[in-house]
């Protein structure tokens, strides 16, 4: 296990450009994550086209650093202005903002930085241990198993659309239809191409993603542009001392382990991990610890857990090619664009890439801690950049990003179309992540189902007489049913 990590570290250390990209990625991630409304997914979607001309190692250095940095960056606004930069930082507002209100914003930010960094490192160590074992197991997979795995991946749509599962599933089906545009994977007959050669290979993934994530966010910012102004508070206090750090260390370790395991469950992202860890820390609180009033453990628990979920989410992505959340869905897109196929073959045929990913994630989390502590005052300044400037820059990046994939203006118009669809969906309270998940997993599901039918002469018994297939299909049913149950509980709670 550690020999793989050492190989990865050697490979990363041999290229100074990887280092520079990691620092750039962490800084950009923290800055974007700190800006309310701009999510880690959007940051990665916008930066993905920038990685086209790079070798795989450099691309991952940028994308993974942005991923880790943005999850941490969300806590800065959560602590300073009670507005979580990303959903994962929502639980940090409870004690982080309360501590900042008491004039100890520096202490709150330092606690969040250290917890995030340590949480991330612990999750990477878990990733290194578990992912290769899982990948070896998947070497036994054939078409029926891959079909069942894709169905299991698609069932995650139910758990990520907790507010309204039916609407989430509708978005997923819409995404599957979008995924069917282009040449039929088995017979190469064109579907819904309207005579356009640009559509023969399907709707390009990057323009679709930039359209669904970046543009609607810009449109929403336009709506509020003439209304709100955010008041910024300064950071005027000491950082955390060693004794305080030692007192929160057990909470960090426990929350990190919890976060990594929750992150590894597809569909359960950093926000669920953070709330669960906060709840657990609160449940185990001593008498003198008052959660909700600026308790350090109340900041450490959610922050360690949400950053630990990043390493956790990479476990199913690398070993099963199933993205755990929308961030890893973007990473999966990045892997595919680079010509890499996650899963067992990635571990056997391109182990150097896997080792580099491990090393990059480990180093990104360490850099995040160092940069975070050193730049607490500097990052806060990013919050004062007006949205009037940020929106045109993001739109310019979106145009160039969608164009550069195939050097095609057609793709830019695809981005605009999906931007409008994404905005309307946002307004109608329909989440767009299922579309991305469906566009990624749809072709895998259709191709393998039809291949399995050919393998078994049209007999569908492979759905119930192959153990791994049965397990994945049962897991898919369980995911949907448990999500429906959770939604019912949630609605009952709201009505009470």
């Amino acid at each position, binding site marked *: 296990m550690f020999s793989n990590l050492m190989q990865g570290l050697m490979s990363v250390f041999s290229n100074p450009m990887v280092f520079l990209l990691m620092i750039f990625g962490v800084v950009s991630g923290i800055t974007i994550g700190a800006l309310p409304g701009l999510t880690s997914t959007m940051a990665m979607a916008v930066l993905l086209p920038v990685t086209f001309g790079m070798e795989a190692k450099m691309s991952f250095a940028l994308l993974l650093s942005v991923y880790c940095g943005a999850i941490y960056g969300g806590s800065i606004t959560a602590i300073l202005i009670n507005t979580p930069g990303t959903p994962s930082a929502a639980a940090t507002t409870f004690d982080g903002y309360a501590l900042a209100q008491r004039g100890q914003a520096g202490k709150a930010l330092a606690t969040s930085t250290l917890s995030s960094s340590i949480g991330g490192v612990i999750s990477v160590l878990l990733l290194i241990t578990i992912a290769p074992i899982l990948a070896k197991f998947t070497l036994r997979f054939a078409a029926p198993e891959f079909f069942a795995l894709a169905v299991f991946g698609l069932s995650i749509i139910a758990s990520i659309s907790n507010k309204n599962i039916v609407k989430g599933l509708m978005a997923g089906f*819409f995404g599957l239809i979008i995924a069917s545009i282009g040449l039929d994977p088995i017979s190469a007959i064109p*579907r819904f191409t309207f005579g356009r050669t640009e559509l023969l290979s399907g709707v390009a993934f990057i323009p679709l993603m930039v359209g669904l994530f970046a543009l609607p966010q810009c449109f929403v910012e336009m709506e509020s542009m003439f209304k709100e102004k955010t008041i910024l508070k300064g950071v005027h206090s000491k950082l955390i001392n060693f004794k305080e750090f030692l007192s929160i260390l057990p909470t960090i370790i426990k929350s990190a382990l919890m976060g990594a395991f929750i992150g590894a469950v597809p569909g359960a992202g950093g926000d669920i991990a953070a709330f669960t860890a906060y709840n657990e820390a609160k449940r185990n609180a001593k008498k003198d610890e008052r959660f909700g009033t600026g308790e350090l453990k109340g900041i450490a628990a959610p922050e360690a857990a949400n950053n630990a979920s990043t390493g956790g989410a990479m476990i199913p992505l690398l070993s099963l090619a199933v993205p755990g959340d929308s961030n890893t869905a973007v990473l999966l897109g990045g892997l595919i664009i680079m010509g890499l196929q996650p899963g067992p073959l990635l571990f056997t045929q391109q182990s150097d890439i896997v080792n580099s990913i491990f090393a990059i994630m480990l180093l990104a989390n360490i850099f995040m801690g160092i940069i975070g502590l050193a730049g607490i005052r500097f990052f806060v300044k990013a919050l004062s950049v007006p949205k009037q400037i940020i929106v045109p820059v993001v739109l*310019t990046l979106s145009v*160039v990003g969608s164009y550069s994939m195939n050097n095609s203006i057609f793709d830019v118009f695809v981005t605009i179309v999906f931007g409008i669809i994404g905005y309307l969906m946002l307004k109608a309270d329909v989440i767009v992540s299922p579309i991305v998940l469906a566009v990624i997993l749809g072709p895998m599901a259709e191709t393998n189902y039809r291949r399995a039918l050919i393998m078994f002469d049209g007999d569908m018994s492979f759905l119930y007489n192959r153990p791994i297939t049965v397990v994945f299909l049962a897991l898919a049913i369980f995911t949907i049913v448990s999500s429906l149950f959770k939604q019912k509980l949630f609605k009952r709670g709201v009505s009470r």
Partner: protein
Amino acid sequence: MARINIIVALFFILFAALVLVLSAGIPVSESQPLTMGTPMFPRMLSYGIIVLSTILIATNFHEARTEKKEDRKKMFEPGNLKMVGIGLLILFLSVVLMVFLGFIIAMVAMNVAFLFYFKVKNKVVLIVEPIVAPLLIYFMFQNVLNIPLPSGLLFY
């Protein structure tokens, strides 16, 4: 929200119907009986959307009928659609302009238009941002990453 859900369901049904109509025109080769055929997958998905939309309508119908007018959630606040519409128009025209005038001119124009639209009054920002941002992005893509950006039909 109930009324919005019903409108969403109706739009999805329309989309599914369109897919069903279009899939009728997809040819089926005779060698595909085992693999369901090319149009089968989108057709199954369209039926799925229709079923889910019907469930959404059924579960929201009663609430939509009994919902008081003042409790109804609006999809768009007054004026928001206009703001976004103008922004979208600026974006669309800039992309069209990019085809003829190339990336730099079109994106500088787009940034200037957005800054004026957002009522930015600071002259330094009005001059520096629209020039620096597109040029920096152009330099990064064109020179560092070797990804060619459109130079425009007029300057080809």
